[in-house]
């Protein structure tokens, strides 16, 4: 373009990732700020409220951490899939199934003590989410069906399934017709650990360590990392590629399922439609930004969670519609994609006399 020629780099830029994110963030916030102005909202005040709402006070930080938990879990799963170049966008549906699975456990054994119920919820949530991801995995392996559309359709179906249960068989008779299950017993709620932060954060830490251990200390984990990077070399080195495809999808389903379990149990204390908050899509943004570097996933999960909480604050203070968050997230992803160009390519000025 113009007086420059695009040249592929000899080696991809290493430190680029965080710098690109910063530039992307600035760009996205500016453009989103413009959106605020369009609706007649004050631009700078809006940005301040965004920051303050997400990170400004202890209460906000707690809120942000609470939202980080489901995003983090989903993002880990999605990042693992992306590493194998499996475009799993079904985290939303897998989240929903996890919530359904946990609710089933609670409603079936309402009188069970916490030390039985909590693990049972986790198991059921993981199984439900995992199965929900298994179907697209098998469809891809056996029939070559593109996982993007199948996982996406399963999102819709999963969410509708949740709605069906909540409007129908599981509806609380005492809820005046509102679609929600009865309140969960105390035994089914994850207790707080610090302030309002519940045990889910411990679960996150455990999962993070376990995943790290799996990826860097086991042979299968190594095969996942190496094989996902280069499927041709994986074939050459006789890696269990097909098995890994199923494995990553089911793992993501289980993790997203756990996110669903936690949200149902702690944020709402019962199952209702609005447990779905789009964490599955935010997880995609995080996974793309952070790749499969676990600490980076944590950081970006935290940042994007803060963004959500900040947007809620904007909603409250300036009556900005909640969809504003979607605008920011979409813009961040687009600008990051564009920015990653510079990791792989550089611009060289065209020399005189060269056409």
């Amino acid at each position, binding site marked *: 373009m113009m007086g420059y020629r695009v040249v592929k780099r000899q*080696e*991809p830029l290493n430190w680029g990732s965080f710098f690109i994110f910063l530039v992307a963030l600035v760009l996205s916030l500016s453009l989103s700020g413009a959106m605020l102005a369009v609706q007649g909202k004050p631009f700078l005040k809006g940005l301040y409220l965004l920051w303050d709402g997400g990170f400004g006070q202890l209460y906000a930080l707690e809120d942000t951490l609470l939202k980080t938990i489901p995003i983090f879990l989903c993002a880990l799963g999605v990042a693992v899939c992306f590493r194998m170049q499996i475009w799993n966008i079904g985290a939303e549906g897998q989240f929903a199934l996890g919530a359904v699975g946990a609710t089933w456990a609670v409603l079936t054994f309402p009188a069970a003590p916490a030390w039985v119920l909590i693990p049972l919820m986790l198991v059921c949530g993981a199984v439900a989410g995992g199965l929900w991801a298994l179907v697209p995995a098998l469809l891809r392996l056996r029939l070559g069906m593109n996982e993007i559309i199948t996982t996406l359709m399963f999102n819709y179906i999963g969410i509708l399934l949740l709605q069906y249960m909540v409007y129908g068989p599981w509806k609380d008779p005492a809820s005046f017709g509102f679609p929600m299950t009865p309140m969960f017993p105390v035994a089914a709620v994850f207790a707080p650990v610090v302030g309002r932060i519940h045990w889910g954060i411990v679960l996150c830490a455990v999962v993070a360590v376990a995943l790290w251990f799996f990826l*860097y*200390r*086991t*042979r*299968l*984990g*190594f*095969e996942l*990392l*190496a094989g996902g*990077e*280069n499927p*041709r*070399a994986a*074939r*050459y*080195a*006789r890696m269990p590629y097909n098995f890994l495809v199923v494995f990553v999808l089911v793992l993501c389903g289980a993790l997203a399922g756990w996110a669903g379990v936690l949200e149902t149990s702690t944020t709402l204390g019962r199952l209702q439609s609005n447990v779905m908050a789009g964490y599955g899509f935010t997880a995609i943004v995080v996974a793309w930004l952070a790749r499969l570097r676990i600490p980076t996933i944590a950081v970006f999960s935290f940042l994007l969670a803060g963004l959500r909480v900040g947007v809620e604050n904007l909603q409250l203070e300036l009556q900005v519609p909640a969809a504003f968050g979607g605008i920011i997230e979409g813009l961040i992803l687009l600008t990051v994609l564009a920015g990653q160009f510079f990791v792989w390519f550089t611009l060289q000025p065209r020399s005189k006399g060269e*056409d």
Partner: protein
Amino acid sequence: MTEQKPLNKRTARDRYTHLPPVVRLEGISKSFGRVRANHDITLDIRPGMIKALLGENGAGKSTLMSILSGRFPQDSGTIYIDGAPVRFTSPADALTAGIGMVYQHFMLVESMTVAENVMLGQRGGFLLSPRRMEETVARLAEKYGLEISPSAPVSGLSMGEKQRVEILKLLYRDSRVLIFDEPTAVLTPSETEQLFEALWRMADQGKSIVFISHKLQEVLSVADEIAILRRGEIVDEFHESDVPNQKVLANRMVGRDVVLSVDAPPVAVCEKVLEIEGLGGDGLDDIRLALCRGEIVAVAGVAGNGQKELVEVVCGLRRPAAGRVEILGRPWNAFYPHPPRRGRSLAYIPEDRQGLATCKYLDLVDNFLLTTRHAFSRRGLLDRAQAEDVTRRIVQEYNVQPGHVDAPARALSGGNLQKLVIGREFFREPAIIVAENPTQGLDISATEEVWNRLLEARSGAGILLITSELNEALQLADRIAVMYRGRFVDVFPRTDEKKVEAIGLMMAGVQPE
């Protein structure tokens, strides 16, 4: 040696023998990094003449023609068309000037018809009439004797027919010089006949044809003039009146340089590590080979004659369609898909070291672990620390530069990457080593290092060396098998001087007597 008098069926050649050249290449030089692909080449291309460019792989033929067809510019030298100097910035420029190339890998839109492909990109009206397009193409094809159905989708065509579409594209654009890059590599014998007839007809109508090849028989059949390239320079030129016989051509084409001399006692008792009998299918034709521990068998031949398929079968990436393959005494089905990991294993050193043998963004330890991972795992857990130590040791032992094991494989030059791959594969103490063009793209010193390693490994394993570098085969092999069109033309010990003399011919498919 049976020498066939080539049948040149041209009728109108005499009309053109005294015309001035259409294209003159003067002093053309081109280097890629340190590799000198073309050096000070001067060549004339005359109308109505078929000129063959002969030479081994890497001699510089394709580079020269890529420059002429506008794919990339020369470093120095000038191209003259009709006496006037020109500069091409793209293949489109060259096409406008009347120079077109028919590539080995066709640039056709598979889902479109022949007529659509021929007319693609040409200026014209807004509307298209398939019928009219097909009529135009049919007329053109008839004029040059090219048999093709204009309404056929390209995806269903044979290679010969696809080639005809490429030719028609050039003819439709009134190209005066048509360059063919190894055109018969993908053709059956009868399609080759048809191509030659078409070439003669085009030449008789005044077109200039340039024909890149390494196949002596065909060159002698079809060409009016022959130019031989070796290591980027023109070493010989023959015109229609003074073309020599095949043997002379073969020798001039191949040449020979001795870099190492090897002292290798032949194997006394053969412990068979690989046995192939009657292997067929996938383009392979009744392959028979027995490889013993302690010997190197080189499979020599021009790339694309079935070597890839043979390697894939031996290394377990392709099921043998017919025949018997036994690896370390076990049939193929039993050996794969769970081959022994260490000790009695098969090591494969592929040609594509960047894309297949390694992962370029992973570090050296991860790349080392790629095929040795089982040696460092116990009950599913991977001992990366141990692997790191071993990698460090191997890196040092094999002199892989740079020596930090946490650098990505991308940072390594070709030669060092190859040494890493070799170090990795030898670590597994294999009983068979399959090495595919192991020194391709390497400089002299790296080549020597690799050769020495292979010779060292010889004592403990049987090595199958696939190479298109004749010299490499001659340096390393105990026995040489020459491969052509999916079969072994002959298998003989390196000490058989007479047969070694005839290797060039065998690689071109000529059966020795």
